[in-house]
């Protein structure tokens, strides 16, 4: 330990050095708002990082990515393995008015939903708390997750409060599909 460490002067330098050391090897899990990355032939800016608490210390993370013309959500779930999904918000109405009716009558949506000529099957449902930007007391919600026969395409319905519904359609992605990860000016 040098005198700089003793008085805490060297700490900032060391942290900066660590950041510099990792600059050639930035992982997808470490992206933060302000970062940029390439996916699906477009450049995206990371504009938010939220997380979901499903109880029993089960957390999943979600990043909001914006290109010039659309917004997508990149999610990371780790169970036995790490799964990455990309979802695009869709209008809940696009799923058909019978879905809302079904929920009102049975407190659950149907086990099968057809959307854009693809049949989705209910895979799991549950409740949790959503932490916008990773902070706050957390907002309670219920979600129903559907997947197609291949298990690669997803559909998700979320209920917020009494009668507010949101839907998104997504797909399983691989980490290598995200390239040129770049920290922004004020993120290093």
């Amino acid at each position, binding site marked *: 330990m040098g005198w700089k460490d003793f008085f805490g002067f060297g700490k900032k330098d060391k942290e900066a*050095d660590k950041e*510099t050391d990792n*600059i050639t090897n930035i992982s997808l899990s470490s992206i933060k708002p302000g970062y940029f990355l390439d996916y699906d032939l477009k450049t995206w800016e990371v504009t938010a990082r939220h997380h979901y608490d499903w109880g029993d210390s089960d957390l999943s993370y979600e990043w909001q990515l914006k290109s010039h*013309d659309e917004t997508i959500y990149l999610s990371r779930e780790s169970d036995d393995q790490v799964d990455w999904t990309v979802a695009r918000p869709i209008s809940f109405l696009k799923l058909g008015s019978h879905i809302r009716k079904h929920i009102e009558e049975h407190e659950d949506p149907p086990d099968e939903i057809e959307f854009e000529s693809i049949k989705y099957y209910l895979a799991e449902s549950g409740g949790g708390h959503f932490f916008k930007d990773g902070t706050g007391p957390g907002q309670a919600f219920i979600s129903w997750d559907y997947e197609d026969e291949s298990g690669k395409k997803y559909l998700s319905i979320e209920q917020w409060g009494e009668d507010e519904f949101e839907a998104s359609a997504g797909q399983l992605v691989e980490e290598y599909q995200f390239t*040129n990860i*770049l920290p922004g000016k004020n993120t290093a």
Partner: protein
Amino acid sequence: MSFFSRIFKIGQSEIHSTLDKFEDPIKLTEQGIRDLKKDLQDAMTSLAEVKAISIRTRRDADNKKKLAADYERKAMILLQQAQGGALDMADAERLAAEALSKKEQQANDALRVSTEADRHEKMANQLQANVNKIKSTISTYENDLITLKARAKTASSTKKINQQLAKIDSSGTIAMLEKMKAKVEEDESLAIAYADIATPDKTIDDEINSALKAGKTSTVSTDLLELKKKMGIL
């Protein structure tokens, strides 16, 4: 070469030689890589700025295009309303003309901003290629350094072992082993000496048994005699 130049050259070479002894090539290479990474960080920051501008400009161009289309739609609605009698035709035409003028302005702006976005995207691609090149270079250097570190360690260990095997290193392991061997031999000799001192005198019974043993001819000797007789040597 003048006398003073020669003196200077000698001094210079001595200084270089001394400095060489202090330099650790591995540490110097590590520092070189760290410096490269700092340069890379700066390049990445610039690239991030260009990418941010590029996204913003493209979004701006898209919005202007949408706005132009919206003014055209409004102009059409105005004329339709006038046609249906809901609006005075003269007013409708005047407003539609205004809307079309704004549409033209937005379309021109969209074109200009779109060209800017193209330029920013091109620049971002060029910078990205440079950043990737630096990353690749750093990665190659890092891998080379790992191999060199391993080679340096192995070479150092091999040098030590070979020195010891060649007994060049008198204060090393071989010398210590020799010293220990001498000490063990000394202890063993002492143990034997103590054992001899501790052994009691032979008893009468021991002497009798020993004499009897000496009187016995061994089977091997008997066999030898028989063989000699058979061969006619005896």
